[in-house]
Structure formats: C-alpha cells, structure tokens
C-alpha cells in the first residue's frame, strides 16, 4: 500500500526528516509515536502532498510514485489525513463541504455523484453509527467548534470518504474518553484487510481501543525503534529518553 524509502525532507533549509523508511501493507495499522517536534506532522503532511518541502527519497502508493502528484489527486486516490489542527472555513456549511468533497472523490473514482437526498441519508446514518451529534453538520465548517467537535468531524469525514489509507495526526489529543471511543469506532469500522492506517499519537490510551500491528518511534526525523503494541505500553511508562 504505502512504501517510504529513505525519505528526507527539509523546510527553509531546515532538515526535518532525515532518512525515514516505512512500509505499510494493506490491512495493517501502524502507530507512530515520538517526542514533540520530531517530525510526525511533517511526515503526515508530506504523505498528503503538502507543498513547501524539499524532498528526496521514494514515496510509493499502491505501486505508483506519488511524489509529483498533487494534494487533491492523492486524496482522490484514497489518502486521507485527519488534521492535527482542522481548519475553520467561515461561511461554508459543513454538510455542503462534505458533499462537495465526497462527490469530487466519487467523480475521480468513476462513481456516480450523490444527489442531496442520498447524501443526507448517508451522513445521517454515518453520524448516528459513530455517535456524532448531527448539530455540527448544519454549522459553518469548524467555525466555533470545540476541539473535540473538530476532531469528531474529521473522523466523520474519514468515514464518509472511505479512504484506502487513513492518516490520523493526533486525532486523540485533547479528547475525552467518549470522544476517543468515537475515534476508535471510526477506525475499527473502516478497518479491513484492504485498508491501511497510520495513527500518530502521544498516548497509549487510543491504542487500547485500536490495536496496532506495529508501533514506531520517530525521533529527530528517523524511525529509531519499531515494535508491536507492547512498545506503546513501555513508552507510556518510560518516556522517550531511553530510546534516544
């Protein structure tokens, strides 16, 4: 599914990722942990195609290099990023945004666009399944949403867009227990042997609900340790000091 080889990235001449290797197979769920500023969000941004980085190395998605592919094309190919800080877009209705987004993705996949009625049915069903209050859907996109509401909205979008690779950048940070369960539910209900996940988190807690196949530690722009879910528990106790 995803293959990253010797990825180096810098911004304004500042090196952030310094030779990162990672392979995620279909059906696998990988967690990435690591100290603040180690480059986790940078990795997520680069995978999604964000501009502004100087990049070398290989980046393959489903056997195809995506290095030269635009953000929207990658999204249409099935890469989804739940943002660490979801953006507010004033004046844009959340429902409407989601519908436009879903239809762009569907169009790119050669599927029929959904009319308003079928879309509303789908979103009603999905938010009910996840236990997300529909109230946010009629509001302006992320404007005035609480931190938790923003994150739930990201998960709802992930569910609706049904991506092949979902990247969650600290979606669990700042969430109460119930909200964390919603995030976990979003992931677990999507999870199957064809879909892959890259979950960036600082806390073991989320991983209690979604069992990762691998846990990686990212430090100073490199993966310095890889293990299975026990590694996360260990880190929770000892911190990152021992690893460095």
């Amino acid at each position, binding site marked *: 599914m995803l293959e990253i080889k010797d990825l180096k990235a810098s911004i304004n001449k500042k090196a952030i990722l310094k030779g990162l290797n990672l392979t995620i197979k279909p059906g696998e769920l990988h967690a990435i942990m690591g100290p603040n500023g180690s480059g986790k969000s940078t990795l997520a941004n680069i995978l999604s195609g964000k501009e502004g980085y100087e990049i070398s190395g290989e980046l393959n998605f489903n056997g195809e290099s995506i290095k030269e592919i635009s953000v929207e094309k990658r999204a249409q190919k099935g890469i989804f990023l739940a943002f660490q800080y979801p953006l507010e877009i004033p004046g*844009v209705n959340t429902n409407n945004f989601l519908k436009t987004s879903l239809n762009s993705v569907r169009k790119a996949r050669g599927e029929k666009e959904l009319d308003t009625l079928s879309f509303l049915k789908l979103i009603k069903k999905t938010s009910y399944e996840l236990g997300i209050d529909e109230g946010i859907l009629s509001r302006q996109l992320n404007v005035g949403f609480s931190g938790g509401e923003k994150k739930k909205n990201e998960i709802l979008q992930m569910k609706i867009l049904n991506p092949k690779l979902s990247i969650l950048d600290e979606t669990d940070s700042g969430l109460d227990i119930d909200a964390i369960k919603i995030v976990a539910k979003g992931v677990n209900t999507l999870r199957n042997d064809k879909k892959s996940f890259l979950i960036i988190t600082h806390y073991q807690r989320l991983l209690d609900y979604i069992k990762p196949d691998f846990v990686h530690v990212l430090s100073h722009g490199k993966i310095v340790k890889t293990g299975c879910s026990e590694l996360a528990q260990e880190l929770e106790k000892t911190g990152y000091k021992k690893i460095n």
Partner: protein
Amino acid sequence: MKQQTLEKSKEYKYGFVTDIESVKAPKGLNEDVIKFISKIKKEPKWMLDWRLKAFSRIQNMKEPNWQKPKYPKINYQDLYYYSAPKSVKDKPKSLDEVDPKLLETYKKLGIPLKEQEKLSGVAVDAVFDSVSVATTFKDKLTEKGIIFCSISEAIQKYPDLVKKYLGSVIPITDHYFATLNSAVFTDGSFVYVPQGVRCPMELSTYFRINASDTGQFERTLIIADKGSYVSYLEGCTAPMRDENQLHAANVELIALDDAEIKYSTVQNWYPGDKNGKGGIYNFVTKRGACRGKNSKISWTQVETGSAITWKYPSCILQGDNSVGEFYSIAITNNYQKADTGTKMIHLGKNTKSKIISKGISAGYADNTYRGLVDINKKALNSRNFTQCDSLLMGNKCGAHTIPYIKNKNHTSVVEHEATTSKINEEQLYYCNQRGLNQEEAIGLIVNGFCKEVLQQLPMEFAVEAQKLVGISLEGSVG
C-alpha cells in the same frame, strides 16, 4: 501560491455576437441624434425637451476624475447612441411575434423567454442594445395593477407617473454620466407597484449589448407606492470585443410610506481578456429614495464583469424610520478595476443603514470600496453599520477601503469595521486534501467569504451567482 497548471480557463461564456440587422442613429453626440432617438421612440415633446436640457448642460460638464481607475479619453463623437434590431421596429405585442433570432440569443444566455414564461415565476424584460424586445408575464401583473414595461412604453402610456418621478432622485445635472444618460438614454425598465400590493413574482431585466461601437444608456425607474413590495433583478452580458464599450446607466428607485424595494444586480459584462484588452466600462448611477416613513430600499450587487466598474448604489433616507441596505460583492481578476460602494444619506429620524461589502481581487486587478455615510443634523437616533472585507489572491492585486463618515448629531451612531486578508493557503490545503481541486477550493472559500451577501439574492439567482463567483476567479492561481 500553489504552482500547478490549471485546466485552461474557460472563455467568457456569453461572448458571442448575434448576427442581426440593426437600425442605428448616425455616430456622434449632438442635438440631431437626440431628436432621432426621441422620434424613433415616438416620445412626447416634454420628453424631448427634457433630453435637450440635459444635452445643453453637458457641454460645460467634465467627467468625474476622483475615482481610482483611470481610463483613456472616451471620444463621445465616435459612438453610436442608438442601435436596435430592425425586426423590433414596433415592440412585439407577444413572444410569438419576437424575432426568433432574438429568442435564440436569450436562450443561449440562459434565459429561455418562452419556456420561462411557462415554468419559472420570474417576469423578464429583455433589453437588446437600445430597445426592450420582450416583456413576459404582463397579463398576470396587470391583474394586480402592477405596471412592468420598458421605459419607452411608460413614457407614452403613463406620462404622469414618469413626469412626476423621472429625475426626482438623480437630478438631470447630477454629474457627467448621469447627465449624458438623461440626454441619450434609450431603454430600460419601468415598474410601478400600486398601494398595498405585494408583487407576486420577481421582476427582472436582462441587458444585452450586441452591436459594436455602441454605448448602452439604460434608464430604469421603479416606484413602490404606499405599503407595497417589489423585488427586482437585473443581469447583463456583452460580446467579447477588443475595444472598450460604454454602459452608462441611471437607475432611480422611489419607496413611499411603508413600501419596500429590493433591487439585485448580477453584473457580468465582458471583463476584457486576460491581458486587459477590451471589456465594458460600467459607469453607473443608481440611487434610491426612501421617501416615505418606514420605507426600505435594499441594494444587492454581485459585480463580476466589466473592465472598469464605477458605481455607488445609494439610499436617501428621507422618511422617518426608513431603512437603507447595501450588500455588495465585487470580484476583479486579471486587469479588471472596480471602484464601488454606496452612499447612505440619513435625513429622517430613526433611520438605519447597513453596508456589507466583500471585495475580492486577483491577478493584477484593483478593487476599491468607496462609501459615504452622511447623518444629517435632524436625523436623530440614526444608525449605520458598515462592514468591508477584502480578500486578496496573490500579491500583484490591490484592495482599498475608503469610507467617508459624517455624523452631524449626537444621538446617532456609526460603526465601521474593515478587514483585509489573503486567501488562506492552509484552508486551500485542507480543501485539496478532501479531494477538491484548486478552483473548486477557491470557489468554496470565496463563496463562504461572500455568504452574507449571496444569501440576500432571490433564490432563483443565488445558485447562478455562486457559480459565477467561482468562474470569475478561474485561472487566478497557479
């Protein structure tokens, strides 16, 4: 800004020319041409005298030059002041008599007059160059006593109303373009809504410039009698031409006691090509008088076309408790220039005005909001709220906000807020990540930015206007 090749931006969709034989006045601005116009329109003598009075005044007037966009000198002697399709010698009585070529033209513009009469609830007056070629739904309106016809027809059929109100809001000698219009105006719409009547449908005029070297001088007059209500919308397009063409309109609105007029414009004149060649000079005077107590006039404009837009739809709040509103979106791309805003003149007590202006500038364009809020000494307890937001795309365009505020009494309050921002790259990235391409993303964000204004538009037009907002900015990034 994101470097990526965009799909070749779509050409201006309305840029075609209708091949139709026309009757023209000889080129040039002189008494004979004015007499020609007046004669061909079978006007009474008082109307001709009115025109000639304006013409005599214009000799000593100068074009305004305080506005920001400058333009090469216009040779007023090198223009045609009247051009009309030959087939419209006498205005057709019904749609069946209208030249099929004209019906086809309006169909291509998205206004299928014949179908529309059956399907949608909008009455249309279609103005082609200098004449009105068709007005729909006349019968249904007549039942309610509403008059909706071309101004030429009104001058013949309702001289008392025209005499009483024409020039009563925009005096003949107001300024150069208004005076020029008074001398040579050709067609436009006339609306009268009688006392206590709520107009049951949207009224709309569609202006089309077709002939070359021709100025269009539209004149519209709307009167809402006591306790009445009317919502009116105008749309406009023109062919793509390398030379600039002049559109100098005068629009006057009069609202009597407890009456309300809602006037919306979707202006999509040809903006010129991406290098700034050609396009319409849109020099327009629009003014409404809230003459009666508790009356209300609301202007909504979506200005996306024209090489230069120069207009300030204004409200004179004479009646006590009267309300004036101005909602504006002005989008300039490539080399377009806009200098637009409003004047709110508070004369009556407890008068209120609200100004919401959204300026969007891209490419090498320049966008100015210029507005006056003038609260008279006697206009006690009056209020104004002004919000001007500018959005810039790229760093070669300009946005300016020039508010003039005169508050001459102590019981009135004026609030002014202004913001200028660049289109937010992170917002674009977020939209792109959800599968929207650059243009969809910009369309979405800009529509969000303009929402307060868009939602003022009648439903039938809001969707079209939203699309237009997106299209006007095509090719503005990359």
